[in-house]
């Protein structure tokens, strides 16, 4: 009897812990898949350093200590690289000295612990030689992203 009670209590504790973990690791409210996109600059746009990148997502973007997701921007490297720019709000200024020419940027949605949350989007920009202002791209072709959720 006592043993059965202990087993039941253990089961209830396990169930409660599972529910807490599930609640902590569930997706956006509404249960849909996570998304990330880049609204600016447009794919293939011409930019000069520095330029702004505006990201969109169906989850709140914030620094890790807020418990929200954030975005990593990868410049001409894959998502497994350790070299990236952090995006803790919807708009970020890119100041790194990209060489003039075409560059591929991957915007990857990350969990606060910096692990990959899943969605990412890839776009290209052409950096012009002159550095004037913080334009977010002059040309505006329709996006031809290779990634999902653009």
């Amino acid at each position, binding site marked *: 009897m006592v043993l059965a009670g202990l087993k039941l209590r253990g089961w209830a504790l396990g169930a409660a812990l599972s529910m807490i973990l599930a609640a902590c690791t569930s997706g956006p409210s509404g249960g849909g898949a996570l998304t990330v996109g880049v609204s600016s600059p447009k794919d293939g746009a011409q930019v000069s350093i520095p330029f702004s990148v505006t990201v969109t997502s169906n989850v709140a973007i914030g620094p890790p200590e807020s418990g929200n*997701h954030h975005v990593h921007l990868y410049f001409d490297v894959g998502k497994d690289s*350790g070299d990236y720019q952090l995006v803790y709000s919807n708009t970020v200024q890119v100041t790194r000295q990209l060489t003039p020419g075409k560059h591929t940027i991957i915007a990857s949605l990350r969990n606060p612990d910096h692990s990959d949350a899943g969605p990412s989007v890839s776009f290209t920009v052409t950096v012009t030689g002159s550095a004037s202002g913080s334009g977010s791209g002059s040309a505006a072709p329709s996006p031809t992203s290779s990634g999902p959720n653009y």
Partner: protein
Amino acid sequence: MKLERYSRSARRLHTAVYLLTLFLLATGWWLLVGREGEPSPVARLLGVPDAALHVWVGWGLAIAALLPLVLARRGVAAFMRETLRRDPGDLGWLLRWPLAIVTGRFARHEGHFDPGQRIANVAIVGLLVALIASGIGLVLVHFGPVFVVLAAVHRLATFAFTVVIAGHILVAAGILPGYRGAWRSMHLGGRVRLDTARRLWPGWTEREQRLKRRPGDREASSR
């Protein structure tokens, strides 16, 4: 004459834990000071992001810290018993400590660890448990309000642990005159000179010498 202060297995565990811990402190502080996304020299060398390196080595520390609980329960019990002991002269020892670290004239104590070491042991083990538990939680939870609490615990424990470990290294490295020679107890065979042992752990030294003279007593004392 020299006395063996710690067994080979204890020294190996200590070395494994401190190498992993120092690596985690280095990568952890790299991330804390805002270098995330900028590969550290080690991350560049291994081609792995610092955050991922921190997690992998963190799992290594968790395993290293849990192994003694499975493989060396008697050693863990002895460590806990000696760490949590309280003797009448402890307060006096602590009051004389600030001057003794320079002069080397520590008050007598009977423990395997001196009263300062016992406090350091409690702080180090407590903070390691907090860091490992919150670290595992951060990996499992990923995001949300629980993540925020765990991240705060992990960050605060890192600050406190850094201070405690800096103090431990300062003492254990034998930089302070009073602790000269102490570093030998965990390195290069783990044997300390008799005068060093008498200065730092007088009661333990006398017991060890008695046991050396009468080996049969060692068995009796270990029972």
